[in-house]
């Protein structure tokens, strides 16, 4: 045996070792030929992505997002819980909640009495979806809607939850959904921004919305949401100053653009190029915006459909009508916010008023898109940032109660744009505290929206500060069950 070892040692000499190693090195070298950018960082992932063209054929081309800011209670709108009527006033069974956290607003409450909806529910349409009496118009269109009762989120307070819904992160500074879509799908109408924002408020307890919600984050600022306000100047600073005509404005812009080009060639800052594009778009918007904003030519049927408030600028109804007009004119993402849904107390009175604000116009928007043949290619989304607790915040009386924030289950609806119509997806437990079937996380929802628009949420990425960012961060699964 010793002899063999010796022989082996002699055979496996340095020369043999080196020659074998060179073989290994050679094979690595061969392999590296096939891996571009192995040694110089690498921008391989982004290379395949052409901003402005979807990854695959989209079902929806545009989105209208009717954000119900403040978080509407699911129990008085779409999540019918007859069990709560039986158990009204009883304690929320501790086994249901377990160790789940509460907000600071009710964590110290001595008792958690279950509160039933003060308003009745009925079943509607072929789908037999349950809708409360607060939504008489929405109940008529349930066969066009997909009601998702099993949404859940991670945040427990308004601002982080809202930011999470819009940007995929609770902290802010990331691009909003509309900005991502503008980046991913590009412009349809070069005379209007890709992403517009409309605000309204009801008389219910309200929560703020901030421009960070329609921020472009680290994306090019051309993708930022443009807020359209009520009043004479829907888009600020769009009007020519007094004494300046179109021709003079054009000349000014041409000269300005030359100057900008000069500094661009010197510094190469992409923000300068974005600025030039924005000036040009603003110039075109000067004619396109007044045309879109003009509601005076809407026929009487439309006024009746949306309700007469649609002619009062700044109302939710007017914003819905405007949303239709903007979307019809090729705006990729129209974001509405209706404030006032934060019913910690005095819920019956406030939610009735809030529902009255939005019910008719939201349903009208779906009908109106449908009768123009646009619903197939427009995704409409209605919902808040989280849900509300099945127990009462504060004192539960026969006709008054409140509900605290509840991230564990809530209801939204979607319509058109490749969503299955006439469907109720997911469910919650009997006391409406947790999701019992088919949970949909906010990132799942975002992945699904992107999917409907022809974008793969895992491939719609942007590299910033050395990291590749997505709207869905590092999670999210397309909910295929609700796609037609």
């Amino acid at each position, binding site marked *: 045996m010793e002899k063999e070892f010796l022989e082996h040692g002699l055979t496996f000499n340095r020369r043999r070792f080196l020659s*074998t190693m060179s073989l290994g090195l050679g094979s690595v070298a061969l*392999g590296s030929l096939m891996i571009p950018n192995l040694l110089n960082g690498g921008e391989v992932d982004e290379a395949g992505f052409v901003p402005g063209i979807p990854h695959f054929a989209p079902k929806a081309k545009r989105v209208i997002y009717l954000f119900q800011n403040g978080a509407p209670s699911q129990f008085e709108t779409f999540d019918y819980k007859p069990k709560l009527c039986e158990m009204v006033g009883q304690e929320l069974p501790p086994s249901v909640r377990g160790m789940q956290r509460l907000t600071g607003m009710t964590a110290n409450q001595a008792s958690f009495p279950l509160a039933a909806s003060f308003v009745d529910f009925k079943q509607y349409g072929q789908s037999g979806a349950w809708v409360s009496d607060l939504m008489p118009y929405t109940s008529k269109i349930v066969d066009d809607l997909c009601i998702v009762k099993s949404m859940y989120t991670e945040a427990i307070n308004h601002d982080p939850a809202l930011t999470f819904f819009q940007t995929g992160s609770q902290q802010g500074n990331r691009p909003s959904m509309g900005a991502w879509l503008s980046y991913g799908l590009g412009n349809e109408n070069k005379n209007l921004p890709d992403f517009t924002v409309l605000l309204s408020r009801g008389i219910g307890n309200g929560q703020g919305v901030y421009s960070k919600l329609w921020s472009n984050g680290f994306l090019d600022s051309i993708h930022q949401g443009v807020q359209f306000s009520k009043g004479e100047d829907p888009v600020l600073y769009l009007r020519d100053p007094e004494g300046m005509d179109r021709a003079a404005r054009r000349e000014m812009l041409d000269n300005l653009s030359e100057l900008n080009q000069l500094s661009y060639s010197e510094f190469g800052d992409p923000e300068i190029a974005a600025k030039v594009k924005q000036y040009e778009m603003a110039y075109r918007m000067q004619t396109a915006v007044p045309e879109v904003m003009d509601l005076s030519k809407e026929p009487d049927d439309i006024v009746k459909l949306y*309700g*007469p408030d649609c002619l009062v600028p700044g109302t939710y109804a007017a914003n819905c009508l405007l949303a239709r007009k903007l979307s019809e004119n*090729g705006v990729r993402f129209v974001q509405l916010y209706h404030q006032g849904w934060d019913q910690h107390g005095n819920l019956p009175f406030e939610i009735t008023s809030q529902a009255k604000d939005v019910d*008719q116009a939201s349903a009208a928007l779906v009908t109106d898109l449908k009768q*123009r043949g646009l619903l*197939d290619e427009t995704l409409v989304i209605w919902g808040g940032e989280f849900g509300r607790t099945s127990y009462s915040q504060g004192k539960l009386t026969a006709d008054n109660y409140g509900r605290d924030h509840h991230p564990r289950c809530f209801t939204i609806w979607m319509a058109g744009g490749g969503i299955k119509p006439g469907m109720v997806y997911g469910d919650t437990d009997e006391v409406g505290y947790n999701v019992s079937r088919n949970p949909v996380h906010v990132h799942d929802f975002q992945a699904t929206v992107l999917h409907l628009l022809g974008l793969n949420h895992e491939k719609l990425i942007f590299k910033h500060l050395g990291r590749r960012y997505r709207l869905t961060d590092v999670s999210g699964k397309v909910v295929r069950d609700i796609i037609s």
Partner: protein
Amino acid sequence: MNKKFKDIAEQALIVSTIFILFLLLFESKLVVPVWLQPVGRMHPLFLHFPIVLLLLALGMEFFRFNPANTANTFYRIFLTNFWLIGALSAAVTVIMGIFLSKETGYEGETLPWHKWTGIAVFFLAAIGYWCRTMTWYQAPVAKGLALVTTLCVVLAGHYGSVLTHGDNFITGPILKSAPVPLEEAIVFNDVIQPIFEQKCVSCHNPDKLKGELMLTDAKSILKGGKTGKLFVAGQPEISLLLQRIHLPSEDKKHMPPIGKSQLNPQEIALLSLWIKAKADFTKKVIDLPLNDSLRLIASTFLSPVEREEETFDFAAADEETIQKLTTEFRSIAPLARESPALAVNFFNKTAFTTEKIKELKEIKEQVVFLNLAKMPVKDGDISQITAFENLQKLDLNFTDITGKGLKELTSLKQLKNLSISGTKVTAKDLLAVVPNFKSLNTIVVWNTGLTIEEIRQLQKAHPRIRFIEGFKDDGKNPIKLNPPQVKNKSTVFNEPVLVQLAHPVKGVQIRFTTDGTEPDSIKSALFTNQTVIKASTNIRAKAYKEGWFGSDEVAFDFFKRTYVPDSVRLLLPLNRVHQAEGAKSFFDEKLGTFNANSPAWANNWAGVRNNDLALMAEFKKPILLSSVELRIMEETETGIFPPEAIEVWGGNSPDQLKKIAVIKPSIPTKHRTHLLQAVGGKFKPQTVSYLKIVAKPLSKMPEWHGGKGKPALLLVDEMFFN
């Protein structure tokens, strides 16, 4: 084998081991050049070599330590060489496979299984080759290695075949019959029975007959089982079948039993709807109404596979051509990456001419979506549109086309989706042309010359086409008008002012009163834009219009203000959160509103609670003052009350003021809804240059109030000196 060849082969094995490790390490960054792709594509061809060679070698390895074989030199050499060549061919196959996997179309869950079992085969073979001469390598190890590697070969082969041929390739012909086309599908045979077959029949068949129930054919289904009939036609709620399905899964009687494949919600819905529709055994799916739930769900059930991405058999247009044809008012975009199909949108009708459609002839093959909504398109332009031979979706809403143009459109063989809302097309036009459209499945006809009745008739005559009628007000469900609005810039005035009331809806009548009574549609004055007021007035108004319910009442307070002080200052501080604009806020003509959503401090209301509201006003020219009023908010529920007292001090210098009047507003005696009102009073006219107003917040809230005894909040937005 020749020693030299063997050395080369062994070195090649080392090279390929390292090469493969390297490829795996950087796989995500790997880009296979086009010229190497054919090598990858030879993977399915080459893989047969390692399978055969390795299986043979492994078989021999299994028996290698049998005494007969250890003695056999030929056996040993033959096996070693075979093993080496087998491992090498596995290496080549793996490399080829990695290249091939980089091509598109290889995704999904099977690929990783195939890949890693394949790689395992190679590494087992390679490591085995180097280890099998070691001393510890004895019969058990040899047998184990041979078995494991063989298993990997089999698995890799199996997953590979799934990749190429798809799942159930082998059993496919036995298991699946061709899918039934929707048109021919019968609800029971093609939807309901397959559910039973998949989920129930394994226990409820002639051989097993659990619970004396058989679900193999209509007759036995009708017969039911031991517990009784399966269902009551028309009443799924009380049908045994659904009761059993809906029982909690722990229940012994829950069906299918725990552990067996369960029904999904869609299947449950189908069973329930089928029973609800009287459990018919012969009805066809398409005989059900178009929007029937059973039909909708059955249709998706019959074509469960997601629609494949549509492919087009024309070539893509030149990118430069698309760039050239894209203008500010005409967007052209591919449907998706690598799709040759284009969508074209027109915007801005003033920029539109027929020429603009004509210019697109270079891409006439590629345009599949065309949006001309609101463009002044005339019948004469249709011949330009029909040039887009592959057009699938055409939007002609609110264009000037008529039935004549529509007729020409029938030459578009691919047209599936047509929108003609807001055009002058009539029922007669549509009746004539609809049968001539080859592929049409949706037509949108809202706001055209068609009545709802006519649309429904058309729908009946053409059940395959979806007619979208939209909303038309039939006057049967009037809704309430919104209240009138005031358009005056401010409702605070000095000179007589013209009242400007308005309503956004055209043709509305505004009725109003100024005497504090409730307005109605008959007796109250009709607003005609000629009302001029001189004194503070409360106007109450409602809006009316034929076909609508009258609006809620709205009240507008017009306040007369004769004197505006030249300078003002506060003598005592305001609440930290109710600062408004400081002393100026009382004369800025901005009325505060009641709005729970706008916090008072953001809303023109200045407030005090723990000290008086004390304001010093200076008039450069002495004024003759006879009344002082404060506009306040009252909301008893949140502890906002009118002031206890308002003291008016006046004089000719700030040091020599005397008390002119003390006004005591009435304090509410019970809770009432919030209220905005002016409180104050008149007194004997006095000439003053300096005026001090002291408003005292209610120091103790009344007995009936929840906050009794505590000081109330006083909120003031304007002051009026007359």
